[in-house]
């Protein structure tokens, strides 16, 4: 099966020609070389493959590429050099949120969506915000602290 799917990816127009049932994570990593999004469980439960679709967090391992026709997609590569992206990444580094790092791209995407919608979240709201992102190293506490740090240091950015 050969179909055309159109979407924007990190701000660029893309025309995908191929099987629309391929998983979006595979298309991102193999066709577009965007290997920041990781595959953990492959069942939409661990959050490592999280990306942003039309301002909302989604797991790219359970979306067929044919389901994003007309959508705007942003991956970790699309935010890492933006002010907001740097704010999160710097806070994670400063506070020591990262151990093995495998969950971190998804965790950063979840943080990005959380702070974009809620610039000053409570600890409970932070924990809910990353509840779909599983980390097997840190025990989450330092990640939560670093999200608080990103909210504080980037207050002007998130409230913009």
């Amino acid at each position: 099966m050969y179909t055309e799917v159109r979407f924007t990816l990190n701000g660029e127009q893309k025309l995908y020609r191929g099987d629309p049932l391929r998983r979006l994570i595979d298309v991102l990593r193999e066709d577009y070389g965007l290997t920041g999004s990781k595959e953990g469980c492959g069942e939409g439960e661990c959050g490592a493959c999280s990306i942003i679709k039309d301002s909302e967090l989604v797991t790219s391992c359970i979306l067929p590429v044919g389901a994003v026709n007309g959508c705007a997609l942003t991956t970790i590569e699309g935010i890492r050099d933006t002010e907001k992206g740097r704010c999160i990444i710097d806070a994670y580094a400063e506070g020591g949120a990262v151990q093995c790092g495998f969950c971190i791209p998804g965790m950063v995407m979840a943080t990005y969506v959380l702070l974009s919608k809620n610039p000053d979240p409570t600890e409970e709201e932070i924990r809910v915000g990353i509840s779909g992102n599983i980390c097997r190293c840190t025990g989450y506490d330092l990640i939560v602290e670093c999200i608080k740090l990103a909210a504080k240091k980037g207050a002007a950015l998130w409230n913009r």
Partner: protein
Amino acid sequence: MEQVKCFIPETLEEALRIRKETGATVLAGGSDLMVANSMGAGVTPAFRNDVMIIAGLKELKGIRTLPDGSVEIGAGTTSAEIAASPLVPELLREAASRMGAIALRNSATIGGNIGNASPKGDMPQPLILMDAEVVLTSADGERRMLVDDYIIASKKTALHDDELITKVIIPKQDFTHIFYRKVGMRRANAISKLTLSAAATIRDGVVVDFRASSGAAGPKVARSRKAEELLIGKKTSELHICKEEFLDAWNAVISPHAMPEYRRNTTRRMLAFFIDALEAGHAPGRVDISE
């Protein structure tokens, strides 16, 4: 294996035509079907039949209140949209808000959750309590039926090969008291071990309506109008008299397969908690176990 065809219709009309011509499997959010047909990392999921992706159909999106006070939800509306909408009755919002986690709720749809007909599906349970209906549309017309009738058994529904679930319609609700509980392994990303909704309308100390529905406690959501009638018409001050009879009747309609004692005992205790709260004159609103 021969490769299946995949269609991406741009309008509902086109989707209904494709469905009639091919009987293609309907994929909306993908959260059930992409996992069920997964072949692992880097490999295209292997579907047995042709597939039609309806994720982009605008006609299937949105929530609105109809003139008679009922709420109409497009089948392609996501769990996140339902959980966030003030138009949606609280029992359904609550169930939708506890499905998976944020990213899954942004993909999973109400039509898919009903169509998948899993006994553990979160949204059919309160929908059945509220006497909600599905609208099934084909190129030749549409029909409506109760969600309770649409889901026949685990993974078995009344959907015809040429039909799509297009809408869910929830009648206007006027409960004074509601109860919702999902039991899972953790607060996020937990498949339901057991769910229970209960609702009552109390007027002048009399139970004028009482309903309950049990999820993950049998091959489909369990509800018993016969058991509910044991409480309807009773004074709240006399609920203790008929409570045990009701609990026994409810216990007879659920049929949990795994861990039956746990599921039966927990269901019984939750229902007893709600009934006791009604008798104790609990203020209108949500009756919550953590109080």
